[in-house]
């Protein structure tokens, strides 16, 4: 944050605080609000300036067959059905990891078969469930081409700079998610030449903010990455891993975690452990879902809309 220059700095800061607050309020309305209102807002805005939208799905855990959802393949198929039914076709999809449950070839095959029915380009980052084979060969061979290090990369679309980070490898005893020195050095180089006005979208599996460290829901060295992003006016961070929607705004950075397409997990601290949460069968699909994200040029915040599979 910049320091005050002179006597009018205080009032300027107050204005900025108000703006931040207003921005936060708008975000919460858009991100966590009532879907119908969002629909109206979105429709109204869409008539003025057509936005650019993309899709996020997460934690499909293909291969999971435990009581919390004996048919994770089926709910992924339903999620892709929702994607195909969207009124506005997204530009592409990102998958924030845990594609499979046990990194088996058959699970990757099934996931590919289902997700490909969206006929969208998909940008993946791995979850810890995707890197269980000894050499992490299965994930790398399918999704790692063209990426750096353990699978990180960046690309540009519609003036937005997208950065896929990997924080599920080389985890340290007693620790959380981990980016590592090499990846942070790459991120610094990747951002160096970019104008602060470039909207940034960062996506990674484990949350890049301390959601609940007692359950491992955070990333040890995320502060270093976020420091590199501080100078940018619009930063959106999209994560998975915790199988529920949560948001937080810190300065110019908006953090969002997504629902799973496979099974829900409990709210932080509300259960003895973060294991799969069994809910009544008629409630399951209200806790699974997909997310669309719309960027409108000139807007600091991206509009994030989470759509459950049912309800």
């Amino acid at each position, binding site marked *: 944050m910049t320091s005050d220059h002179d006597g009018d700095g205080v009032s300027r800061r107050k204005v900025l605080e108000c703006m931040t607050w207003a921005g936060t309020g708008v975000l919460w309305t858009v991100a966590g609000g009532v879907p119908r209102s969002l629909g109206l807002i979105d429709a109204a805005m869409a008539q003025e300036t057509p936005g650019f939208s993309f899709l996020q799905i997460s934690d499909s855990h293909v291969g999971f067959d435990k009581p919390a959802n004996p048919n994770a393949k089926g709910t992924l198929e339903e999620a892709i059905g929702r994607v195909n039914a969207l009124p506005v076709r997204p530009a592409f999809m990102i998958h924030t990891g845990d594609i499979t449950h*046990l990194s088996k070839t058959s699970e990757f095959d099934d996931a590919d078969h289902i997700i490909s029915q969206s006929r969208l380009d998909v940008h993946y980052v791995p979850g*810890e469930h995707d890197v269980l084979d000894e050499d992490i060969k299965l994930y790398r061979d399918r999704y790692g081409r063209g990426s750096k290090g353990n699978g990180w990369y960046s690309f540009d679309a519609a003036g937005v700079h997208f950065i896929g980070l990997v924080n599920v490898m080389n985890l340290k*005893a*007693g620790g959380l998610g981990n980016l590592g020195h090499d990846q942070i050095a790459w991120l610094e180089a990747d951002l160096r030449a970019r104008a602060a006005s470039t909207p940034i979208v960062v996506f990674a599996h484990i949350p890049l903010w301390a959601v609940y460290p007692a359950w*491992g829901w955070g990333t040890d060295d995320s502060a270093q990455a976020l420091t590199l992003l501080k100078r940018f006016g619009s930063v959106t961070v999209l994560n998975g891993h915790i199988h529920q929607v949560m948001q937080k705004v810190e300065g110019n950075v908006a953090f969002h975690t997504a629902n799973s397409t496979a099974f829900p997990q409990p709210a932080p601290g509300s259960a003895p*452990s973060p*294991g*799969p949460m069994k809910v009544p069968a008629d409630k399951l699909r209200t806790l699974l879902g997909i997310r669309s994200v719309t960027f409108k040029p000139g807007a600091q915040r991206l509009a994030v809309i989470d759509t459950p599979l049912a309800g």
Partner: protein
Amino acid sequence: MFAIAIRAASAAVMLIVLASGFADAADIQVKIDNFTFNPQRVTVKVGDTVTWLNEDDIPHTVRATAGDFKSKALDTGDRYAFTFTKAGSYDYFCSLHPHMTGHIVVESVGGASATP
């Protein structure tokens, strides 16, 4: 062969003394449930085998911090066993959920205990 069969059959029992190999070699079980190793701290003797059993609906691993032992991913109901042949103090964790940690103290058979 007979001793091996007994060892496999007894894996679900907390503490079984086997009449083979080491005179008092034991098989100690650590359960993995609710994202914890239970018991989290175990003291055994050289020659004892520790067996981890995953009872969670999520896979876990058992990995020594210093690299002495390492399991594959254990799905629900899977086991991993390691026989300790050296006295010492062993920290381990789940490489998928590294906030899960455990500790094994291995005492030499002669009675001299390792520093925890």
